[in-house]
């Protein structure tokens, strides 16, 4: 619940940002390093731009990256996962091999490499995040599809002459909904963190107002170590980032289907798998 509130606030702020910001976040509206005051709620940064405005405007970048990258992962992951699960056989093993290879690659160095070569831009970041985040979703979708197949309705529908697309649309996707939703929330958090991380290294879109980029600027300035400057320059963007990701995590934890390990003592089962989304494997990049 808390998570939902956080994310809703984020979306509202992002959408209303043009009316909410006191100043243009990219413009120089004051002296550099001004302290928080009634004119600049969080002071100004090294260029003289209002920090509070940048904080609010940053929600837009976060939202854009989060939603588009997640949508990309949704499309690719579901398409591949469903196909692999339904068709089985060679296609299934091929897709799974692909997933294994992708999961084995360390994502962040690759992203850095590509971003440095292709030139930093928001499109490149979003595309790449989408390209590297789909394997986990695809695998989850495929596993769920396989288990759903064992319940008769797929065969019954096919027996009535339904084509595979129809089966996917009307039967499988609704059934897969909860699992996908939980996973996607996690993916969104990952995408946002990766984008912030890339901006922090300096490979984010220079034109976009991003919290990660602000953190980078703050830390690069030697004055950050002196005085209370860090309180209103370093902390707010980072806290905003943290709160956003935390909100998404809370939603994810609440949505997650419960694969309860058997706690009952009489149960001998030892081969219980931990919940698919609760323990992201350490190969998740950007953390």
């Amino acid at each position: 619940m808390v998570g939902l509130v956080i994310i809703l606030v984020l979306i509202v702020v992002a959408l209303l940002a043009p009316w909410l910001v006191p100043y243009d976040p990219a413009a120089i509206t004051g002296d550099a390093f001004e302290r928080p005051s009634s004119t600049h709620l969080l002071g100004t940064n090294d260029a003289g731009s209002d920090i509070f405005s940048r904080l609010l405007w940053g929600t837009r970048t976060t939202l854009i990256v989060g939603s588009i990258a997640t949508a990309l992962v949704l499309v690719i992951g579901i398409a591949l996962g469903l196909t692999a699960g339904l068709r089985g056989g060679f296609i299934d093993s091929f897709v799974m091999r692909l997933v294994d290879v992708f999961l084995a690659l360390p994502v962040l160095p690759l992203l850095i490499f590509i971003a440095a070569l292709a030139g930093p831009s928001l499109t490149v970041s979003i595309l790449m995040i989408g390209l590297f985040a789909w394997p986990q979703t695809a695998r989850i979708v495929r596993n769920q599809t396989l288990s759903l197949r064992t319940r008769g309705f797929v065969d019954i529908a096919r027996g009535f002459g339904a084509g595979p697309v129809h089966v996917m649309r009307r039967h499988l996707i609704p059934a897969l909904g909860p699992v996908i939703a939980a996973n996607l929330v996690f993916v969104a958090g990952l995408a946002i963190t990766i984008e912030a991380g890339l901006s922090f290294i300096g490979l984010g879109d220079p034109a976009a107002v991003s919290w990660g980029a602000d953190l980078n600027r703050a830390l690069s300035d030697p004055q950050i170590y002196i005085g209370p400057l860090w309180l209103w320059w370093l902390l707010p963007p980072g806290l905003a980032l943290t709160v956003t990701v935390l909100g998404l995590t809370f939603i994810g934890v609440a949505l997650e289907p419960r694969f309860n390990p058997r706690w009952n003592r009489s149960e001998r089962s030892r081969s219980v798998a931990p919940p698919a989304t609760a323990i992201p494997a350490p190969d998740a990049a950007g953390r």
Partner: protein
Amino acid sequence: MTTVEEALPVGDARNGDKSDPLVGAIPRRRGQWLTLGAYLATIFVLITVNFALPRMMPGDPIDALMAFGSPNYVTDDETRANLAAYYDLDDPVPEQYVGYLTSLAQGDLGVSIVSNVPVHKELGGRVGWSFLLIVTAILISILIGIPTGIHSGWKRGRGLDRGLLTFFLSVQNLPIFFVGSVVLVVFSAKLGIFPLGGATTPFNEYSGIQEVLDIGRHLALPALLMGLEFATYEYLVMRSSMVAELGSDYLMGGRAKGLRERRLKYRYAGRNALLPVVTVIGLQFSLAVTGIIFIEQIFSFPGVGGYMFEAVATRDYPAMQGAFLVLTITVVTSNFLVDVLNRRLDPRTVA
């Protein structure tokens, strides 16, 4: 199914052939050969990507070599032609590829544009520091993550578990570069407890124990942060694995025998639940590579991650490629080794 005898876990009787230390390392079955093949294939893919990517980018390869806007950018046509000849860029691509592979086999990773020093020399010094950082971080993470995980799993839902779970889940979601920055400012700059960065105090004349202490002081914060990050995963896996153990028969048998709870908890259940965590620890290298790029940048630690960051900042492509190769091959190799280790430790996972 577990019988009471084989469930009492004193001594690992599950492991079959303990006399041969190479059991599991050398592929015995087709499935294992396939894994080795997949590993080599991935390495090969990475090497090729390393070669192909700069050439696939829009623009002249010389552009890719020396980015527009960097001080090394060449605009004079004749110089460009000379450069192209020097780097063999006017050879057909397959020939370039062969040349690339040959130099790679000899350990030649190119020359850094910024410093004009061969990349493998620069990397050589850095790898040691990164290794030190990662190993220390892993040790710290084991100390933090495993006991808490055991305790949490044992007490799932009650008492300390709830607090610990919330704590570790929250920490897991904190962006590491943010936490690192704040910690650096607060503990190093403001409170002055730890140094501001680097691995050693510059120009120091320490030796022996003083040197070790000095390195330790510099290592403390970065290793602690990375260790905490690792610990969250280990904690979660340990906890979940403990919970799965809780239904086992031997616990009931142990209690009937009159063993104390504490002994059951650590010596029996904890030990058995350890296996997935060992795998996770092995996989930390993958996570480490990501964390190291941020942490080394923030704390100016002279490791491979920091090297990659500097190379990116100055668009020093040969250096970037070298660092990229080292990082990615390390990750893939460690994943592969974890796979092999898994086979050895738990024959049930053999394909």
